[in-house]
């Protein structure tokens, strides 16, 4: 149900209802009745052909087919993901987490070797006090490193393809139409959202899905339009690609993701990810800049991980923004925002969050309806789950920061994990906490719950006490080849 209110109201929450400004009037979608629903012949516009848009299109078409609905899905994506460099790239570290690889396989989406740049079976934690390897529980390649586009700047050819292009192709294979024209604006025709292309002719849709990234500028489409969109709060991260070659990459990084916990202000953590011929460096923290990146690249731990000549062969870099707080309630009647344009996971598993929000929105649209009330009842709980989990994630990262700052705590952490990894059949509580924190394999609430286990606390404190005595670097860990 839509009620018309006097104009001039500020947008936000109103007694639990979503507000949508249309022209000079503000409508409240109370939406308890599912008067708005997809039917055969309904048209859906998806703005953005990254993972969130492709997942949504794939699943909404799949589920609609299962229930006998014949709907039309148009994906608006001007970029060509087969281009090298920034033109075809969505700028992220891009790891497909262990649970997501499994869930996609269960959905029938298997990531082929032509898309996966390297299968990952372990993490190597680097600190100034030593290194330690954390293996996957089954010693199986269940994490995938991928490039979002075809590959870094300067490349001419590659035997791999980008993840985003692959997913978009799957969505098109399900029946979605790919429209490569740039959108000029989003409007409202009185009862339905409209998308206006360069030809200036608006197209009306029954449902508009925002699936764009925070770095695309697509949010400007909504500026001054009928649909008010509150952009999520972001912070700046850093990604840098080093050309190493497959053989050297194998020797230096192997099939491990290398995590660094250096004590550098504003840097939460850093990682090096092996990908085909490249090593991708990702820095996460508070508004990362070149000065901070240079500080990290001077650390011994980082320099030991790459061949010296490769460090000077950096070929592509960017400072993408990350969604860290989410937008407001990301829906209204006939409108929903998913993935990065809505609410995502803090720092980790952005593609996993894109999958889950896209799937929840698709299920809501087909089975429940497309009113604000339908999205509030069936889509918003998934987003709220992320928001709650991110709050605990901040606690987990604060605890990590406390350990980063104190050498004795770093030594205690290293000893705890090393001992766990050495003993066969031992309870690997700390290893699992670190594994799930850095891989994004489990919600932060589970990581947090595990940290409260008395056995973990006692073991860690014991090793911290031992760590207070000085010892040779790496005596409890391992070293790089």
């Amino acid at each position, binding site marked *: 149900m839509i009620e018309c209110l006097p104009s001039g109201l500020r947008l936000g929450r109103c007694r639990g209802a979503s507000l949508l400004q249309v022209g000079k009037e503000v409508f409240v979608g109370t939406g308890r009745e599912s008067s708005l629903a997809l039917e055969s012949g309904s048209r859906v516009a998806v703005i953005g052909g990254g993972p969130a848009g492709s997942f949504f299109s794939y699943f909404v078409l799949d589920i609609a087919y299962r229930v006998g609905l014949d709907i039309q899905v148009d994906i608006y994506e001007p970029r060509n993901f087969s281009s090298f460099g920034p033109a075809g790239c969505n700028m992220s570290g891009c790891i497909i987490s262990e649970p997501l690889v499994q869930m996609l396989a*269960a959905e029938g989406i298997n990531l082929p070797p032509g898309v996966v740049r390297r299968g990952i079976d372990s993490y190597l934690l680097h600190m100034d006090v030593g290194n330690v390897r954390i293996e996957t529980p089954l010693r199986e390649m269940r994490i995938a490193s991928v490039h979002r586009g075809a590959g870094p700047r300067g490349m001419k050819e590659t035997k791999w393809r980008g993840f985003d292009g692959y997913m978009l192709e799957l969505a098109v294979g399900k029946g979605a139409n790919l429209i490569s024209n740039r959108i000029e604006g989003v409007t409202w025709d009185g009862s339905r959202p409209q998308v206006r292309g360069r030809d200036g002719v608006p197209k009306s849709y029954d449902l508009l899905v925002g699936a764009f990234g925070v770095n695309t500028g697509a949010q400007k489409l909504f500026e001054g339009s009928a649909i008010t969109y509150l952009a999520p709060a972001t912070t700046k991260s850093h990604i840098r690609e080093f050309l190493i070659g497959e053989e050297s990459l194998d020797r230096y990084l192997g099939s491990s993701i290398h995590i660094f916990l250096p004590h550098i202000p504003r840097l939460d953590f850093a990682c090096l990810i092996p990908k085909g011929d490249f090593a991708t460096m990702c820095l996460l923290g508070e508004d990362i800049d070149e000065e901070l990146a240079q500080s990290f690249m001077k650390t011994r731990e980082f320099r030991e991980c790459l061949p010296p000549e490769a460090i000077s062969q950096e070929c592509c870099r960017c400072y993408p923004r990350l969604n860290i707080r989410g937008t407001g309630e990301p829906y209204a009647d006939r409108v929903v925002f998913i993935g990065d344009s809505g609410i995502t996971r803090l720092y980790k598993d952005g593609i996993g969050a894109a999958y889950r929000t896209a799937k929840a929105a698709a299920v809501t649209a087909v089975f429940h309806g497309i009113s604000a009330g339908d999205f509030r009842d069936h889509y918003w709980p*998934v987003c709220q789950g992320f928001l709650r989990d991110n709050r605990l994630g901040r606690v987990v990262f604060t605890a990590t920061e406390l350990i980063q700052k104190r050498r004795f705590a770093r030594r205690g952490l290293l000893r705890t994990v090393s001992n766990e990894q050495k003993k066969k059949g031992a309870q690997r509580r700390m290893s699992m906490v670190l594994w799930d924190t850095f891989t994004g394999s489990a919600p932060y609430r589970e990581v947090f719950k595990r940290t409260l286990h008395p056995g973990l606390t006692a073991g860690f404190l014991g090793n911290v006490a031992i760590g207070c005595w000085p010892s040779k670097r790496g005596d409890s860990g391992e070293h790089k080849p």
Partner: protein
Amino acid sequence: MEMSALGKLYRDGDEIVRQGEAGDCMYVIQAGRAEVVRSEAGRESRLAVLQEGDVFGEMALFDREKRSATVRALGEVRALTVDRKTFLRHVHEDPSLAFRILQKMSKRIRDLDAELARRQAG
């Protein structure tokens, strides 16, 4: 492309799952072929040959019975495991995740019905 493949590598003749063993995961074949064989009274019969994209061991996701058949690699096979706990947790959050597995199981029941009818007619 070996380093780019997901899952675990099995050599020719390796038993990926063994009849009678407890199972707590499903497998998805990423590359290669595998045969499904069942032993009855010391006699082994081949039930099916699986290939890339096929799943097996999915019954272990829903019941706690022993594996009903052995799956053996025909040449090199790469198979990815899907844990019962991970799968069921996600199905609890999103029941539509089970659609495809139910579709596969439904197809197997249809195939079994057809096979039974064929044997009874013959």
